[in-house]
């Protein structure tokens, strides 16, 4: 049952093939078995079981709330959840228990979803590896997959070695790993520069970043107010659309959500792509792009063309400045947003009581890690009076140029852009940590952050396995507020490529019964 899609399980629940409590127990059991992945910071077992009970009552009476009723979901630990500690993987918020639910969490709960727990991330969502949180790094489930291990040809006596495991990507690595390892059917991430799409590509799941303004940020502990968006991670595109349908809409508590009436996100099954125009931005072909990703990108473009779509090369001229612009704007907004952590009203507080300033300084030194402090200081540098014009305002102007690049491309008749999501497949942790966070973020976010600066919707869809047996995903970028069209194209692509299911039976031992009969019937039928 755990291997099925959200919709399939929803049908199964309605038909009584399984009860919410049984489903919940299975997920909790799997979470325990996959604890070594470190995907979860908090497992909210009691809460989930109680919710499952309530869901069961509703199903018995025939009053289920909808497709998400009784479905296990996970939430990244930078979304506030009532009564469940929310840490952002930082010492600053260790032990912080919010008194309210983030709007998106509330919406999921209102639909009857079961909250399995809060997932691990980079500290304050700063990073592209999910390696820099205080609860430790998240391990990519594909490190333990049959597909990867077979290719690696592990030495027999090295079977129990776990030194060369792979990163999940970040910063929503915990959410991606949780979905990839079947411990939940959907997970919330956040996406500021690619934090949902990057781990989705490296963990072989679908990662959706909706248009900025479509989904409420109330309760999402902010990083960059003008770019943050709650992200959705699922195992197939239809599931992402289902969740988006629940989350989208104006929220009076978040004035940056638009008031347009919410359209349906039910995705038609495209059979004819001949009216579609796919754009391939030439500047995204960078020297650092791995040859495997490059060839898959090319293959995907040819696939669209062979099925009748119009595929053209387009230009986003300011691409090479995008990451720099993002760096300046991100650190500046971060410097401002992190100012709220002073130890006074919530979170960690140091013991110094000499003066407020001394207390704040010590609290923040103790509470934040190097990455966060580095960004705060960089941001403050760019915001200094003497630098404001040359760095911050300049970056804002470049942002407009970048956003205009996209507008021009879409105005020329392109419906959807197709680009790689990451430079390569997942790398081993020991390799990843050889460079510092900023360098890695610049590399990890290279294809994804321009989308955040323009506020456009984008989705990463897993395409195929690399020669090493690891997932590679491609990114589709759509017009603003045309999320449904974007997902429709993504769904068509997903069906064409038939990305393989991760085979984790080896390490999950007796969990294999969970997948019996399911692997045969799991299909991406719509």
């Amino acid at each position: 049952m755990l291997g099925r899609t959200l919709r399939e399980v929803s049908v199964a629940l309605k038909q009584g093939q399984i009860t919410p409590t049984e489903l919940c127990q299975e997920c909790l059991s799997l979470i325990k078995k996959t604890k070594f992945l470190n995907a979860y910071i908090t497992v909210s077992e009691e809460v989930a079981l109680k919710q499952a009970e309530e869901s069961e009552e509703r199903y018995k009476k025939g009053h289920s709330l909808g497709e998400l009723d009784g479905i296990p979901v996970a939430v990244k630990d930078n979304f506030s959840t009532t009564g469940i500690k929310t840490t952002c993987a930082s010492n600053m918020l260790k032990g912080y228990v919010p008194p309210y639910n983030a709007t998106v969490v509330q919406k999921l709960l209102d639909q009857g979803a079961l909250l399995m727990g809060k997932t691990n991330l980079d500290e304050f969502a700063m990073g592209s590896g999910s390696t820099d949180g205080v609860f430790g790094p998240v391990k990519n489930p594909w490190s333990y997959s049959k597909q990867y291990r077979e290719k690696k040809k592990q030495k027999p006596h090295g079977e129990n070695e776990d030194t060369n495991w792979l990163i999940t990507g970040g910063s929503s690595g915990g959410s991606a790993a949780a979905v990839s390892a079947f411990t939940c059917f959907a997970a919330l991430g956040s996406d500021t520069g690619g934090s949902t799409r990057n781990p989705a590509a490296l963990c072989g799941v679908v990662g959706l970043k909706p248009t900025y303004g479509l989904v409420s940020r109330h309760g999402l502990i902010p990083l960059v107010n003008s770019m943050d968006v709650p992200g959705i991670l699922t195992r197939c595109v239809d599931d992402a659309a289902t969740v988006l349908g629940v989350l989208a809409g104006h929220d009076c508590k978040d004035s940056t959500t638009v008031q347009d009436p919410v359209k349906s996100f039910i995705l038609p099954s495209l059979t004819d792509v001949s009216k579609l125009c796919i754009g391939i931005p030439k500047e995204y072909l960078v020297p650092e792009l791995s040859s495997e990703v490059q060839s898959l990108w090319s293959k995907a473009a040819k696939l669209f063309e062979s099925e009748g779509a119009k595929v053209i090369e387009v230009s986003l001229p300011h691409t090479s400045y995008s990451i720099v612009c993002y760096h300046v704007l991100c650190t500046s907004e971060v410097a401002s947003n992190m100012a709220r952590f002073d130890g006074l009203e919530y979170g960690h507080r140091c013991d110094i009581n000499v003066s407020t300033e001394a207390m704040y300084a010590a609290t923040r030194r103790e509470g934040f890690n190097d990455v966060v402090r580095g960004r705060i200081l960089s941001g403050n540098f760019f915001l200094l009076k003497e630098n404001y014009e040359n760095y911050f305002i300049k970056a804002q102007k470049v942002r407009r140029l970048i956003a205009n690049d996209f507008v021009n491309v879409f105005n020329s008749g392109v419906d959807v852009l197709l680009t790689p999501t990451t430079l390569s497949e997942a790398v081993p942790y020991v390799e990843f940590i050889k460079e510092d966070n900023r360098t890695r973020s610049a590399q990890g976010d290279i294809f994804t952050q321009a989308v955040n600066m323009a506020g456009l919707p984008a989705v990463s869809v897993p395409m195929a396995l690399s020669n090493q047996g690891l997932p590679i995903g491609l990114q589709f970028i759509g017009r603003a507020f045309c999320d449904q069209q974007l997902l429709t194209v993504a769904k068509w692509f997903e069906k064409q490529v038939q990305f393989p299911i991760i085979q984790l039976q080896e390490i999950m031992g007796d969990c294999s019964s969970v997948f019996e009969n399911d692997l045969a019937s799991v299909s991406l039928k719509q």
Partner: protein
Amino acid sequence: MWARAARRVLRAPGGGGRGFASKAGGGGVSAGGEAAPQERGRVPGDVIEHLERLALVDFGSREAVARLEKAVAFADRLRAVDTDGVQPMESVLEDRCLYLRPDNVVEGNCAEELLQNAHRVMEEYFVAPPGNITLPKLDEQELFSKS
């Protein structure tokens, strides 16, 4: 036909004339026709101190200052962009009106819940140490001796 163009774009080494350097370590640029490497100016000590005071976060080590310098060098690449006549963009939703709620109180009265998260409270107050005392001035030596 796109296929031919694709072969040209996706197989050409370096992607044609617009090679893009994404290696962000120390402002290093690959041979892609980028401007000459920017000078890695050191950030002066008084600016360091000023930043620490503004941010109320300390650098803690020489490495942290070096990282800042690298970050600044990285940001300096923006100078190459011509932004004459371009308006700064603050938000992608700039052509819409920000929604304002009607000024009616519909929730609140949760002082007790909010106070629970604070370490030091007295009745309904958050307790703060005395204000109006500036941080002691630190000289360069002390800056880098902190761990």
